[in-house]
Protein backbone atom coordinates (compact mmCIF):
# COMPACT_ATOMS: atom_id res chain seq x y z
CA UNK A 1 0.00 0.00 0.00
CA UNK A 2 1.52 3.33 -0.97
CA UNK A 3 1.07 6.14 1.45
CA UNK A 4 1.31 9.79 0.59
CA UNK A 5 4.37 11.62 1.88
CA UNK A 6 2.63 13.50 4.73
CA UNK A 7 1.01 10.20 5.66
CA UNK A 8 4.48 8.80 6.27
CA UNK A 9 6.02 11.84 7.90
CA UNK A 10 3.53 12.28 10.72
CA UNK A 11 3.83 8.85 12.30
CA UNK A 12 7.60 8.98 12.07
CA UNK A 13 7.83 12.50 13.49
CA UNK A 14 5.58 11.49 16.39
CA UNK A 15 7.66 8.38 16.94
CA UNK A 16 10.87 10.42 17.11
CA UNK A 17 9.34 12.71 19.75
CA UNK A 18 8.16 9.67 21.71
CA UNK A 19 11.54 7.95 21.55
CA UNK A 20 13.15 11.09 22.95
CA UNK A 21 10.50 11.32 25.66
CA UNK A 22 10.94 7.73 26.77
CA UNK A 23 14.69 7.50 26.48
CA UNK A 24 15.66 10.91 27.84
CA UNK A 25 15.12 10.25 31.58
CA UNK A 26 17.13 7.04 31.32
CA UNK A 27 19.80 8.78 29.28
CA UNK A 28 19.90 11.68 31.73
CA UNK A 29 20.53 9.29 34.59
CA UNK A 30 23.57 7.81 32.80
CA UNK A 31 24.81 11.17 31.53
CA UNK A 32 24.62 12.81 34.94
CA UNK A 33 26.33 9.88 36.61
CA UNK A 34 29.41 10.31 34.37
CA UNK A 35 29.63 14.11 34.34
CA UNK A 36 31.98 16.07 36.57
CA UNK A 37 30.10 18.11 39.16
CA UNK A 38 30.68 21.53 37.52
CA UNK A 39 28.95 20.21 34.40
CA UNK A 40 26.00 18.99 36.48
CA UNK A 41 25.43 22.25 38.34
CA UNK A 42 25.90 24.53 35.38
CA UNK A 43 23.65 27.38 34.31
CA UNK A 44 22.86 25.60 31.05
CA UNK A 45 22.64 21.81 30.97
CA UNK A 46 25.62 20.02 29.44
CA UNK A 47 23.75 17.63 27.16
CA UNK A 48 26.59 15.22 26.49
CA UNK A 49 29.15 14.15 29.07
CA UNK A 50 32.33 15.38 27.41
CA UNK A 51 34.69 14.77 30.32
CA UNK A 52 33.91 11.35 31.69
CA UNK A 53 34.45 10.88 35.40
CA UNK A 54 33.93 7.96 37.73
CA UNK A 55 34.06 9.99 40.94
CA UNK A 56 30.29 9.76 41.48
CA UNK A 57 30.36 6.00 41.22
CA UNK A 58 33.15 6.02 43.74
CA UNK A 59 31.01 8.13 46.09
CA UNK A 60 28.11 5.74 45.72
CA UNK A 61 30.14 2.58 46.11
CA UNK A 62 32.03 3.98 49.11
CA UNK A 63 28.77 4.85 50.86
CA UNK A 64 28.22 2.96 54.10
CA UNK A 65 27.18 -0.64 53.65
CA UNK A 66 26.91 -0.41 49.87
CA UNK A 67 28.32 -3.86 49.18
CA UNK A 68 26.36 -5.39 52.05
CA UNK A 69 23.19 -3.98 50.50
CA UNK A 70 24.09 -5.29 47.05
CA UNK A 71 24.61 -8.69 48.64
CA UNK A 72 21.29 -8.44 50.51
CA UNK A 73 19.35 -7.41 47.42
CA UNK A 74 20.89 -10.15 45.30
CA UNK A 75 20.42 -12.83 47.96
CA UNK A 76 16.80 -11.99 48.66
CA UNK A 77 15.86 -11.57 45.00
CA UNK A 78 17.62 -14.63 43.61
CA UNK A 79 16.42 -16.91 46.39
CA UNK A 80 12.84 -15.65 46.16
CA UNK A 81 12.78 -16.21 42.40
CA UNK A 82 14.43 -19.66 42.54
CA UNK A 83 12.14 -20.85 45.34
CA UNK A 84 9.05 -19.60 43.55
CA UNK A 85 10.13 -21.34 40.33
CA UNK A 86 10.68 -24.60 42.18
CA UNK A 87 7.32 -24.33 43.93
CA UNK A 88 5.51 -23.27 40.78
CA UNK A 89 6.88 -25.74 38.25
CA UNK A 90 5.02 -28.87 39.37
CA UNK A 91 1.81 -26.92 39.92
CA UNK A 92 2.07 -25.27 36.51
CA UNK A 93 2.52 -28.70 34.95
CA UNK A 94 -0.57 -30.01 36.74
CA UNK A 95 -2.69 -27.05 35.63
CA UNK A 96 -1.47 -27.20 32.04
CA UNK A 97 -1.53 -30.93 31.42
CA UNK A 98 -3.99 -32.59 33.76
CA UNK A 99 -7.75 -32.54 33.93
CA UNK A 100 -9.10 -32.76 37.45
CA UNK A 101 -11.87 -31.47 39.65
CA UNK A 102 -11.32 -27.92 40.85
CA UNK A 103 -8.64 -27.14 38.28
CA UNK A 104 -10.19 -23.85 37.23
CA UNK A 105 -10.76 -22.97 40.84
CA UNK A 106 -7.02 -23.18 41.41
CA UNK A 107 -6.31 -21.04 38.37
CA UNK A 108 -8.77 -18.38 39.47
CA UNK A 109 -7.40 -18.55 42.99
CA UNK A 110 -3.91 -17.79 41.75
CA UNK A 111 -5.25 -15.01 39.52
CA UNK A 112 -6.82 -13.40 42.56
CA UNK A 113 -3.69 -13.98 44.65
CA UNK A 114 -1.69 -12.24 41.94
CA UNK A 115 -3.63 -9.05 42.67
CA UNK A 116 -2.94 -9.18 46.40
CA UNK A 117 -2.35 -5.66 47.75
CA UNK A 118 0.91 -6.37 49.58
CA UNK A 119 1.67 -2.67 49.97
CA UNK A 120 -1.39 -2.32 52.18
CA UNK A 121 -0.59 -5.30 54.40
CA UNK A 122 2.83 -4.24 55.64
CA UNK A 123 1.62 -3.24 59.12
CA UNK A 124 0.19 -6.71 59.71
CA UNK A 125 3.33 -8.28 58.26
CA UNK A 126 5.40 -6.16 60.63
CA UNK A 127 3.59 -7.62 63.65
CA UNK A 128 3.79 -11.17 62.33
CA UNK A 129 7.52 -10.84 61.77
CA UNK A 130 8.06 -9.07 65.09
CA UNK A 131 6.21 -11.79 67.00
CA UNK A 132 8.39 -14.35 65.26
CA UNK A 133 11.39 -12.30 66.40
CA UNK A 134 12.60 -11.94 62.82
CA UNK A 135 12.86 -8.17 62.37
CA UNK A 136 16.14 -7.14 60.75
CA UNK A 137 16.62 -10.39 58.91
CA UNK A 138 16.63 -11.41 55.27
CA UNK A 139 14.54 -14.52 55.84
CA UNK A 140 11.06 -12.92 56.05
CA UNK A 141 11.84 -10.75 53.03
CA UNK A 142 12.87 -13.81 51.01
CA UNK A 143 9.75 -15.75 52.00
CA UNK A 144 7.31 -12.92 51.36
CA UNK A 145 8.91 -11.96 48.04
CA UNK A 146 8.72 -15.60 47.03
CA UNK A 147 4.97 -15.65 47.71
CA UNK A 148 4.58 -12.27 46.03
CA UNK A 149 5.93 -13.57 42.72
CA UNK A 150 4.60 -17.13 43.04
CA UNK A 151 1.11 -16.64 41.50
CA UNK A 152 2.50 -14.80 38.49
CA UNK A 153 5.27 -17.37 38.07
CA UNK A 154 2.85 -20.27 38.24
CA UNK A 155 0.29 -18.82 35.83
CA UNK A 156 2.95 -17.75 33.34
CA UNK A 157 4.71 -21.10 33.45
CA UNK A 158 1.38 -22.80 32.94
CA UNK A 159 1.10 -20.92 29.66
CA UNK A 160 4.58 -22.01 28.62
CA UNK A 161 3.98 -25.65 29.53
CA UNK A 162 0.70 -25.63 27.63
CA UNK A 163 2.54 -24.30 24.58
CA UNK A 164 4.77 -27.38 24.44
CA UNK A 165 3.10 -29.87 22.09
CA UNK A 166 1.69 -32.86 23.94
CA UNK A 167 2.90 -35.19 21.20
CA UNK A 168 6.54 -34.64 22.18
CA UNK A 169 5.82 -35.90 25.65
CA UNK A 170 3.70 -38.77 24.43
CA UNK A 171 6.30 -39.99 21.96
CA UNK A 172 8.93 -39.90 24.71
CA UNK A 173 6.65 -42.00 26.85
CA UNK A 174 6.09 -44.42 23.98
CA UNK A 175 9.88 -44.73 23.84
CA UNK A 176 9.78 -45.93 27.41
CA UNK A 177 10.16 -42.78 29.49
CA UNK A 178 8.08 -42.38 32.60
CA UNK A 179 6.00 -39.24 32.80
CA UNK A 180 8.55 -37.62 35.06
CA UNK A 181 11.45 -38.50 32.74
CA UNK A 182 9.49 -37.18 29.80
CA UNK A 183 8.98 -33.95 31.69
CA UNK A 184 12.62 -33.55 32.65
CA UNK A 185 14.06 -34.59 29.30
CA UNK A 186 11.55 -33.12 26.88
CA UNK A 187 9.55 -30.32 28.42
CA UNK A 188 12.10 -28.75 30.73
CA UNK A 189 14.66 -27.94 28.00
CA UNK A 190 11.90 -26.41 25.89
CA UNK A 191 10.76 -24.38 28.89
CA UNK A 192 14.13 -22.67 29.31
CA UNK A 193 13.10 -19.44 27.54
CA UNK A 194 9.85 -19.40 29.46
CA UNK A 195 11.67 -19.90 32.74
CA UNK A 196 14.00 -17.04 31.88
CA UNK A 197 11.35 -14.48 31.07
CA UNK A 198 9.20 -15.59 33.99
CA UNK A 199 12.09 -15.17 36.38
CA UNK A 200 12.80 -11.77 34.91
CA UNK A 201 9.46 -10.44 36.13
CA UNK A 202 9.86 -12.13 39.47
CA UNK A 203 13.30 -10.63 39.69
CA UNK A 204 12.00 -7.13 38.97
CA UNK A 205 9.25 -7.39 41.57
CA UNK A 206 11.58 -8.55 44.31
CA UNK A 207 14.43 -6.23 43.30
CA UNK A 208 12.07 -3.24 43.48
CA UNK A 209 10.15 -4.08 46.63
CA UNK A 210 10.10 -1.10 48.92
CA UNK A 211 7.33 -0.79 51.59
CA UNK A 212 8.00 -4.12 53.28
CA UNK A 213 11.72 -3.69 53.75
CA UNK A 214 11.02 -0.11 54.84
CA UNK A 215 8.97 -1.31 57.79
CA UNK A 216 10.73 -4.57 58.66
CA UNK A 217 14.41 -3.77 58.58
CA UNK A 218 15.35 -0.58 60.36
CA UNK A 219 18.89 -1.84 60.77
CA UNK A 220 20.98 -0.57 57.85
CA UNK A 221 22.86 -3.85 57.62
CA UNK A 222 19.70 -5.74 56.62
CA UNK A 223 18.23 -3.27 54.19
CA UNK A 224 18.10 -3.57 50.42
CA UNK A 225 19.04 -1.29 47.54
CA UNK A 226 15.65 0.37 46.82
CA UNK A 227 15.42 1.56 50.40
CA UNK A 228 19.02 2.74 50.37
CA UNK A 229 18.45 4.58 47.10
CA UNK A 230 15.34 6.35 48.37
CA UNK A 231 17.28 7.55 51.41
CA UNK A 232 20.42 8.32 49.46
CA UNK A 233 19.34 11.84 48.65
CA UNK A 234 18.61 12.72 52.24
CA UNK A 235 22.14 11.60 52.97
CA UNK A 236 23.86 13.23 50.04
CA UNK A 237 21.86 16.42 49.86
CA UNK A 238 22.03 17.75 46.35
CA UNK A 239 24.88 15.59 45.14
CA UNK A 240 22.97 14.67 41.99
CA UNK A 241 26.00 13.05 40.41
CA UNK A 242 26.29 10.53 43.23
CA UNK A 243 22.52 10.01 43.35
CA UNK A 244 22.39 9.28 39.61
CA UNK A 245 25.39 6.98 39.87
CA UNK A 246 23.62 5.10 42.66
CA UNK A 247 20.44 4.90 40.54
CA UNK A 248 22.48 3.66 37.61
CA UNK A 249 24.08 0.91 39.67
CA UNK A 250 20.64 -0.11 40.91
CA UNK A 251 19.02 -0.04 37.46
CA UNK A 252 21.79 -1.67 35.42
CA UNK A 253 21.12 -5.34 36.29
CA UNK A 254 17.44 -4.99 35.42
CA UNK A 255 17.99 -2.94 32.25
CA UNK A 256 20.57 -5.41 30.98
CA UNK A 257 18.36 -8.41 31.73
CA UNK A 258 15.36 -6.71 30.20
CA UNK A 259 16.99 -5.62 26.97
CA UNK A 260 18.69 -9.01 26.72
CA UNK A 261 15.44 -10.91 27.17
CA UNK A 262 13.22 -8.24 25.67
CA UNK A 263 11.59 -10.14 22.87
CA UNK A 264 10.96 -13.23 24.94
CA UNK A 265 9.86 -11.26 27.95
CA UNK A 266 7.30 -9.28 26.03
CA UNK A 267 5.85 -12.24 24.20
CA UNK A 268 5.94 -14.28 27.38
CA UNK A 269 3.94 -11.64 29.13
CA UNK A 270 1.49 -11.49 26.30
CA UNK A 271 0.70 -15.19 26.35
CA UNK A 272 1.34 -15.82 30.02
CA UNK A 273 -0.55 -14.47 32.94
CA UNK A 274 -1.78 -11.21 31.52
CA UNK A 275 -4.28 -12.53 29.05
CA UNK A 276 -6.59 -9.86 27.72
Amino acid at each position, binding site marked *: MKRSLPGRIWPNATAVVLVIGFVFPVYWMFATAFKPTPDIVSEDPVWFPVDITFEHFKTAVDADNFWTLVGNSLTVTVLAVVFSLVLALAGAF*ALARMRFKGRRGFIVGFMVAQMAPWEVMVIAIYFIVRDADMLNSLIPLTLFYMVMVLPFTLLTLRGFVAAVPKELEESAMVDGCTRRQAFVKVILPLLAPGLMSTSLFGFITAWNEFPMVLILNKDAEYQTLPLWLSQFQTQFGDD*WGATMAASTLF*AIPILVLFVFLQRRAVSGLADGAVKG
Partner: protein
Amino acid sequence: MTVQTERPPSGPTEVLTTLEGPGEPPARGRAAALAPYLLLLPPVAVTVLFLGWPMVKNALLSFQNLNMRQLIQHLTEWNGVDNYQEILGSSDFWRVTGRSIAFTGVNVVLIMVLGTLVGLLLARLGRRMRVTLLIGLVLAWAMPVIAATTVYQWLFAARFGVVNWVLDKAGFHSMAEYNWTGSQLSTFFVITVLIVWQSIPFVAINLYAATTTIPKELYEAASLDGAGAWKSFTSVTLPYLRPFLFATVFLEVIWVFKAFAQVFAINQGGPDRLTEILPVYAFVEGVGNQHYGMGAAISLLTILILLGMTSYYLRIVLKQGEDEL
Protein backbone atom coordinates in the same frame (compact mmCIF):
# COMPACT_ATOMS: atom_id res chain seq x y z
CA MET B 1 -10.53 -11.01 48.29
CA THR B 2 -9.70 -12.15 51.79
CA VAL B 3 -12.10 -15.03 51.61
CA GLN B 4 -11.11 -16.06 48.13
CA THR B 5 -7.38 -15.94 48.66
CA GLU B 6 -7.67 -17.92 51.84
CA ARG B 7 -9.87 -20.52 50.31
CA PRO B 8 -10.07 -20.59 46.57
CA PRO B 9 -13.20 -22.36 45.38
CA SER B 10 -12.73 -26.06 46.08
CA GLY B 11 -10.13 -24.80 48.44
CA PRO B 12 -6.95 -26.35 49.66
CA THR B 13 -8.48 -27.30 52.99
CA GLU B 14 -10.64 -29.89 51.27
CA VAL B 15 -7.67 -31.08 49.30
CA LEU B 16 -5.70 -31.40 52.51
CA THR B 17 -8.26 -33.67 54.08
CA THR B 18 -8.32 -35.95 51.07
CA LEU B 19 -4.54 -36.11 51.02
CA GLU B 20 -4.12 -37.15 54.60
CA GLY B 21 -5.20 -40.68 53.91
CA PRO B 22 -3.76 -43.72 55.60
CA GLY B 23 -0.13 -44.47 54.76
CA GLU B 24 -0.64 -47.54 52.61
CA PRO B 25 0.40 -47.22 48.97
CA PRO B 26 -2.75 -46.27 47.07
CA ALA B 27 -3.89 -48.08 43.99
CA ARG B 28 -2.55 -46.82 40.70
CA GLY B 29 -5.77 -45.16 39.64
CA ARG B 30 -6.08 -43.32 42.89
CA ALA B 31 -2.50 -42.13 42.76
CA ALA B 32 -3.12 -40.73 39.30
CA ALA B 33 -6.23 -38.99 40.55
CA LEU B 34 -4.35 -37.47 43.45
CA ALA B 35 -1.29 -36.44 41.45
CA PRO B 36 -2.46 -32.95 40.42
CA TYR B 37 -3.42 -32.11 43.98
CA LEU B 38 -0.08 -33.28 45.27
CA LEU B 39 1.71 -31.18 42.66
CA LEU B 40 -0.38 -28.14 43.56
CA LEU B 41 -0.13 -28.59 47.30
CA PRO B 42 3.19 -26.76 47.87
CA PRO B 43 2.40 -23.54 45.98
CA VAL B 44 -1.18 -23.41 47.29
CA ALA B 45 -0.18 -24.08 50.88
CA VAL B 46 2.58 -21.47 50.82
CA THR B 47 0.34 -18.86 49.21
CA VAL B 48 -2.54 -19.48 51.59
CA LEU B 49 -0.22 -19.31 54.59
CA PHE B 50 1.75 -16.19 53.67
CA LEU B 51 -1.12 -14.30 52.12
CA GLY B 52 -3.96 -15.43 54.36
CA TRP B 53 -2.08 -14.92 57.59
CA PRO B 54 -1.32 -11.20 57.06
CA MET B 55 -4.92 -10.69 55.95
CA VAL B 56 -6.27 -12.26 59.13
CA LYS B 57 -3.65 -10.52 61.26
CA ASN B 58 -4.56 -7.21 59.65
CA ALA B 59 -8.22 -7.73 60.49
CA LEU B 60 -7.38 -8.61 64.10
CA LEU B 61 -5.10 -5.60 64.54
CA SER B 62 -7.75 -3.27 63.21
CA PHE B 63 -9.97 -4.00 66.22
CA GLN B 64 -7.24 -3.17 68.71
CA ASN B 65 -6.12 -0.07 70.50
CA LEU B 66 -2.51 -0.44 69.52
CA ASN B 67 -0.15 2.47 69.88
CA MET B 68 3.45 2.94 70.94
CA ARG B 69 2.86 1.86 74.55
CA GLN B 70 0.97 -1.31 73.62
CA LEU B 71 3.60 -2.09 71.00
CA ILE B 72 6.49 -1.86 73.43
CA GLN B 73 4.73 -3.76 76.22
CA HIS B 74 3.24 -6.36 73.87
CA LEU B 75 -0.28 -5.60 75.05
CA THR B 76 -3.44 -6.65 73.26
CA GLU B 77 -6.24 -4.18 74.00
CA TRP B 78 -9.40 -4.90 72.07
CA ASN B 79 -11.45 -1.82 71.37
CA GLY B 80 -14.21 -3.15 69.14
CA VAL B 81 -15.06 -0.92 66.21
CA ASP B 82 -13.59 2.23 67.76
CA ASN B 83 -10.89 2.52 65.09
CA TYR B 84 -13.44 2.24 62.32
CA GLN B 85 -15.78 4.72 63.96
CA GLU B 86 -13.00 7.22 64.33
CA ILE B 87 -11.74 6.77 60.78
CA LEU B 88 -15.12 6.82 59.08
CA GLY B 89 -16.06 9.87 61.12
CA SER B 90 -12.92 11.80 60.20
CA SER B 91 -12.95 14.16 57.26
CA ASP B 92 -9.27 13.34 56.68
CA PHE B 93 -10.00 9.78 55.68
CA TRP B 94 -12.68 10.78 53.20
CA ARG B 95 -10.47 13.50 51.76
CA VAL B 96 -7.65 11.00 51.24
CA THR B 97 -10.09 8.49 49.74
CA GLY B 98 -11.43 11.03 47.27
CA ARG B 99 -7.88 12.08 46.46
CA SER B 100 -6.83 8.46 45.87
CA ILE B 101 -9.74 7.79 43.56
CA ALA B 102 -9.19 11.01 41.61
CA PHE B 103 -5.45 10.32 41.39
CA THR B 104 -6.10 6.78 40.16
CA GLY B 105 -8.71 7.99 37.67
CA VAL B 106 -6.51 10.67 36.13
CA ASN B 107 -3.54 8.33 35.84
CA VAL B 108 -5.47 5.42 34.39
CA VAL B 109 -7.24 7.57 31.80
CA LEU B 110 -3.91 9.06 30.70
CA ILE B 111 -2.22 5.66 30.65
CA MET B 112 -4.99 4.03 28.62
CA VAL B 113 -5.48 6.83 26.10
CA LEU B 114 -1.80 7.51 25.51
CA GLY B 115 -0.85 3.84 25.71
CA THR B 116 -3.47 2.96 23.11
CA LEU B 117 -2.35 5.75 20.80
CA VAL B 118 1.29 4.71 21.08
CA GLY B 119 0.32 1.08 20.49
CA LEU B 120 -1.61 1.99 17.34
CA LEU B 121 1.28 4.15 16.19
CA LEU B 122 3.64 1.18 16.58
CA ALA B 123 1.45 -0.75 14.16
CA ARG B 124 1.75 2.02 11.55
CA LEU B 125 5.50 2.52 11.65
CA GLY B 126 8.11 1.06 9.37
CA ARG B 127 10.23 -1.72 10.80
CA ARG B 128 13.28 0.31 11.75
CA MET B 129 11.36 3.10 13.45
CA ARG B 130 9.18 0.57 15.24
CA VAL B 131 12.17 -1.26 16.72
CA THR B 132 13.67 2.05 17.84
CA LEU B 133 10.48 3.06 19.59
CA LEU B 134 10.08 -0.40 21.12
CA ILE B 135 13.56 -0.16 22.59
CA GLY B 136 12.71 3.25 24.05
CA LEU B 137 9.49 1.88 25.54
CA VAL B 138 11.26 -1.14 26.99
CA LEU B 139 13.88 1.09 28.61
CA ALA B 140 11.22 3.13 30.38
CA TRP B 141 9.31 0.01 31.33
CA ALA B 142 12.38 -1.69 32.72
CA MET B 143 13.55 1.20 34.89
CA PRO B 144 13.28 0.09 38.50
CA VAL B 145 10.62 2.17 40.25
CA ILE B 146 12.84 3.78 42.85
CA ALA B 147 15.54 4.52 40.28
CA ALA B 148 12.94 6.16 38.03
CA THR B 149 11.61 8.15 40.98
CA THR B 150 15.09 9.42 41.81
CA VAL B 151 15.69 10.40 38.19
CA TYR B 152 12.41 12.32 38.12
CA GLN B 153 13.41 14.16 41.27
CA TRP B 154 16.52 15.23 39.41
CA LEU B 155 14.68 16.17 36.22
CA PHE B 156 12.27 18.32 38.24
CA ALA B 157 14.88 19.64 40.67
CA ALA B 158 14.32 23.30 41.53
CA ARG B 159 17.92 24.23 40.77
CA PHE B 160 19.74 22.75 37.75
CA GLY B 161 16.76 20.55 36.88
CA VAL B 162 16.28 20.19 33.13
CA VAL B 163 12.52 20.78 33.25
CA ASN B 164 12.83 24.20 34.86
CA TRP B 165 15.63 25.14 32.47
CA VAL B 166 13.46 24.24 29.46
CA LEU B 167 10.47 26.15 30.85
CA ASP B 168 12.65 29.16 31.57
CA LYS B 169 14.07 29.10 28.05
CA ALA B 170 10.55 28.70 26.65
CA GLY B 171 9.67 32.02 28.22
CA PHE B 172 8.16 30.95 31.55
CA HIS B 173 10.78 32.79 33.55
CA SER B 174 8.91 32.39 36.80
CA MET B 175 9.62 28.67 36.54
CA ALA B 176 13.39 29.10 36.58
CA GLU B 177 13.73 27.89 40.16
CA TYR B 178 10.27 26.47 40.70
CA ASN B 179 9.98 24.03 43.59
CA TRP B 180 7.88 21.17 42.19
CA THR B 181 7.42 19.43 45.51
CA GLY B 182 6.28 22.64 47.20
CA SER B 183 2.58 22.27 46.51
CA GLN B 184 0.02 19.51 46.30
CA LEU B 185 -0.85 19.84 42.63
CA SER B 186 2.68 20.24 41.35
CA THR B 187 3.85 17.22 43.39
CA PHE B 188 0.99 15.15 41.99
CA PHE B 189 1.92 16.40 38.55
CA VAL B 190 5.44 15.01 38.88
CA ILE B 191 4.16 11.70 40.28
CA THR B 192 1.62 11.44 37.45
CA VAL B 193 4.20 12.11 34.74
CA LEU B 194 6.41 9.47 36.33
CA ILE B 195 3.68 6.84 36.61
CA VAL B 196 2.25 7.48 33.15
CA TRP B 197 5.75 7.39 31.63
CA GLN B 198 6.43 4.05 33.26
CA SER B 199 3.03 2.54 32.44
CA ILE B 200 2.50 3.49 28.80
CA PRO B 201 4.99 0.88 27.53
CA PHE B 202 3.06 -2.03 29.05
CA VAL B 203 -0.20 -0.93 27.42
CA ALA B 204 1.37 0.11 24.12
CA ILE B 205 3.49 -3.00 23.57
CA ASN B 206 0.75 -5.43 24.51
CA LEU B 207 -1.82 -3.55 22.46
CA TYR B 208 0.51 -3.56 19.48
CA ALA B 209 1.05 -7.31 19.95
CA ALA B 210 -2.73 -7.75 20.03
CA THR B 211 -3.25 -5.74 16.81
CA THR B 212 -0.84 -8.03 14.96
CA THR B 213 -3.25 -10.90 15.58
CA ILE B 214 -6.21 -9.17 13.92
CA PRO B 215 -7.02 -11.08 10.71
CA LYS B 216 -6.29 -8.97 7.63
CA GLU B 217 -9.52 -10.20 6.01
CA LEU B 218 -11.55 -8.16 8.47
CA TYR B 219 -9.93 -4.96 7.23
CA GLU B 220 -10.29 -6.00 3.62
CA ALA B 221 -13.95 -6.69 4.17
CA ALA B 222 -14.37 -3.35 5.88
CA SER B 223 -12.69 -1.43 3.06
CA LEU B 224 -14.81 -3.29 0.50
CA ASP B 225 -17.80 -1.98 2.42
CA GLY B 226 -16.34 1.47 1.83
CA ALA B 227 -15.09 2.03 5.39
CA GLY B 228 -12.48 4.75 5.81
CA ALA B 229 -9.58 4.62 8.27
CA TRP B 230 -11.71 5.82 11.19
CA LYS B 231 -14.61 3.54 10.39
CA SER B 232 -12.42 0.46 10.12
CA PHE B 233 -10.80 1.42 13.40
CA THR B 234 -14.12 1.66 15.22
CA SER B 235 -15.69 -1.35 13.53
CA VAL B 236 -12.73 -3.74 13.42
CA THR B 237 -9.81 -2.74 15.65
CA LEU B 238 -11.69 -1.50 18.69
CA PRO B 239 -14.11 -4.42 19.07
CA TYR B 240 -11.24 -6.84 18.61
CA LEU B 241 -9.18 -5.15 21.32
CA ARG B 242 -12.04 -4.57 23.75
CA PRO B 243 -11.32 -7.55 26.04
CA PHE B 244 -7.66 -6.58 26.22
CA LEU B 245 -8.44 -2.93 26.96
CA PHE B 246 -10.99 -3.90 29.56
CA ALA B 247 -8.61 -6.18 31.46
CA THR B 248 -5.79 -3.64 31.21
CA VAL B 249 -7.89 -0.83 32.68
CA PHE B 250 -8.44 -2.88 35.79
CA LEU B 251 -4.84 -4.00 36.06
CA GLU B 252 -3.79 -0.35 35.85
CA VAL B 253 -6.40 0.72 38.42
CA ILE B 254 -5.03 -1.83 40.87
CA TRP B 255 -1.48 -0.87 40.08
CA VAL B 256 -1.91 2.91 40.37
CA PHE B 257 -4.14 2.74 43.43
CA LYS B 258 -1.36 0.94 45.30
CA ALA B 259 1.49 3.11 43.98
CA PHE B 260 3.07 3.38 47.40
CA ALA B 261 6.70 3.47 46.37
CA GLN B 262 6.48 6.34 43.87
CA VAL B 263 4.41 8.62 46.10
CA PHE B 264 6.40 7.88 49.21
CA ALA B 265 9.80 8.19 47.56
CA ILE B 266 9.01 11.47 45.78
CA ASN B 267 7.98 13.41 48.86
CA GLN B 268 6.76 11.03 51.58
CA GLY B 269 3.21 12.18 50.92
CA GLY B 270 4.16 15.81 51.49
CA PRO B 271 3.94 18.78 51.45
CA ASP B 272 1.87 18.80 54.66
CA ARG B 273 0.55 15.27 53.99
CA LEU B 274 -1.31 16.64 50.96
CA THR B 275 -0.19 13.96 48.51
CA GLU B 276 -0.82 10.93 50.69
CA ILE B 277 -2.90 8.36 48.87
CA LEU B 278 -4.58 5.62 50.92
CA PRO B 279 -1.70 3.13 51.20
CA VAL B 280 0.68 5.95 52.18
CA TYR B 281 -1.92 7.39 54.57
CA ALA B 282 -2.27 3.99 56.27
CA PHE B 283 1.50 3.77 56.56
CA VAL B 284 2.03 7.30 57.91
CA GLU B 285 -0.84 6.98 60.41
CA GLY B 286 0.06 3.46 61.43
CA VAL B 287 3.84 3.46 61.44
CA GLY B 288 4.88 7.11 61.33
CA ASN B 289 2.41 8.29 63.98
CA GLN B 290 2.47 4.91 65.76
CA HIS B 291 -1.27 4.29 65.72
CA TYR B 292 -0.85 0.74 64.47
CA GLY B 293 -4.45 -0.32 65.09
CA MET B 294 -5.69 2.67 63.15
CA GLY B 295 -3.22 1.97 60.37
CA ALA B 296 -4.48 -1.61 60.14
CA ALA B 297 -8.09 -0.40 59.99
CA ILE B 298 -7.22 2.07 57.22
CA SER B 299 -5.43 -0.74 55.38
CA LEU B 300 -8.50 -2.93 55.58
CA LEU B 301 -10.75 -0.14 54.34
CA THR B 302 -8.26 0.49 51.53
CA ILE B 303 -8.49 -3.14 50.48
CA LEU B 304 -12.29 -2.94 50.58
CA ILE B 305 -12.28 0.19 48.41
CA LEU B 306 -9.91 -1.46 45.97
CA LEU B 307 -12.20 -4.49 45.89
CA GLY B 308 -15.16 -2.22 45.27
CA MET B 309 -13.39 -0.52 42.38
CA THR B 310 -12.38 -3.80 40.78
CA SER B 311 -15.28 -6.02 41.83
CA TYR B 312 -16.73 -6.04 38.35
CA TYR B 313 -13.45 -7.27 36.91
CA LEU B 314 -12.95 -9.78 39.72
CA ARG B 315 -16.39 -11.20 39.07
CA ILE B 316 -15.41 -11.77 35.48
CA VAL B 317 -12.15 -13.42 36.53
CA LEU B 318 -14.07 -15.68 38.91
CA LYS B 319 -16.63 -16.41 36.21
CA GLN B 320 -13.82 -17.46 33.88
CA GLY B 321 -13.79 -20.57 36.01
CA GLU B 322 -16.93 -21.52 34.12
CA ASP B 323 -15.47 -21.42 30.65
CA GLU B 324 -12.35 -23.20 29.49
CA LEU B 325 -9.27 -21.25 30.47
